[in-house]
């Protein structure tokens, strides 16, 4: 299904504020209600290395931290690789990780749920940045190349069109809900964990998830 139709059905299930129309081709946006501020879900057109635009799914949250903090966990280098081991070292082997605070970053990435979500989405990447230089307000963003968002067809090759039951069926089969839930949870976990510990403070033993 296309982005707007899929996001429409996701909104009907999860609630929030939905800004899109089925009669226009522009990508819609959804603000999901969250305890610490809304999560913005959108499909953005962004320029690639060649200058050509491509589409990315972006989940963005606001976070407040005591000091400016930058983090980029890029997408996995080797697709299809399956590691039984988990931990920050294994994560750094699979993904390029750069941050402005190398002492703090392992605490964030030790979170077992975050590791699990990152393993489930090898094509997704995570980014934390202050809104402006030196600001305490940050954006936590999880991004992924938008794929399979063209008009989907059923087994007989017919598009969903405006047929509501058919759209519901195709939406349920597309895995869109599970994918969005995973990306939103990844952004939320990263936001909660990153804003939990003041800079320079080591979390107490037993609160560090996962293995180093």
């Amino acid at each position, binding site marked *: 299904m296309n982005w707007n139709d899929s996001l429409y059905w996701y909104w009907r299930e999860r609630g929030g504020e939905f800004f899109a129309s*089925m009669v226009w081709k522009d990508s819609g*946006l959804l*603000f999901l209600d969250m305890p610490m*501020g809304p999560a913005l879900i959108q499909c953005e057109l*962004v*320029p690639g290395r060649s200058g050509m635009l491509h589409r990315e799914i972006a989940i963005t949250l606001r976070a407040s931290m005591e000091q400016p903090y930058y983090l980029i966990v890029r997408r996995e280098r080797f697709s299809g690789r399956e590691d039984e081991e988990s931990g920050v070292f294994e994560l750094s082997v699979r993904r390029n990780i750069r941050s402005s605070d190398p002492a703090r970053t392992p605490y964030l990435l030790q979170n077992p749920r975050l590791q699990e979500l990152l393993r489930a989405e090898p094509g997704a990447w995570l980014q934390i*940045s202050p809104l402006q*230089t030196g600001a305490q307000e940050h954006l936590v963003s999880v991004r992924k190349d938008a794929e399979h968002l063209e008009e989907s067809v059923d087994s007989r090759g017919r598009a969903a069109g405006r047929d509501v039951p058919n759209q519901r069926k195709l939406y349920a089969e597309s895995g869109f809900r599970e994918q969005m839930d995973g990306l939103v949870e990844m952004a939320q976990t990263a936001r909660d964990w990153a804003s939990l510990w003041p800079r320079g403070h080591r979390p107490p033993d037993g609160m560090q998830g996962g293995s180093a």
Partner: protein
Amino acid sequence: MSWNTCLFCYAQERGGTFFGLQQETNFGLQQEPYEGSLLLEDPKGQILISTKVTYSGRYGTNRDISVAVRAALERPYTLRVKKQSALQEGVNTVLDGLDLGARILGKKTDLSPDYGAPELADDRGIKTNEPEFTRWVLQSRELRAVLDANPSFWFQVGPTGPEGLDHLVEARVPLDWHIDIQEEPLDRYGRPLKWERQKAYYRNSSFPKQLDALVELAKAARDAVTAWPMPMKTP
């Protein structure tokens, strides 16, 4: 100044939740390109300010500024009032002539309906699925005033999805041509200006006034489509 910097300054003055970054490299980390959005609070529902890509190709990328609000209507309704253009004015003149000729012959064509607002319909294209209701909508004095004052502004109304009565009301203007966003201001050594000077630069620009007017258009359009009950649909 970039769109993100302008919108960030606007958010500092008007409040709301800003989603965007300054486009720069920090600590050697190349940040991903990002178009900022702003969610403004309003008693009648949240207002979203963002940009939309309208063209992308070998000659670059064009964007519109979009101010979107939501409205609940009784049934699916679509309306698009396009921006003023000399071409549209010419086309409407030709269609008026054809209408007149058909009337003389005793036929009804309705090629160029004015929806009760001839001054709007003269040089703007208007498309709708409910002409009778649109006649009521376009009587809004506030709506006409904002459109008169801003020839490049336009708006559209459409249902959110196949079910329910939610609609999106969206006011737009091309980002590059009509809103006062310029190249990043630099000092005499070619470096970006300090933040305080950037803010002063923003205050002297027409950006806040123009964006306020676009927000007013979205609100006026929302009020216009929700001011009247929709007439009974003729079979």
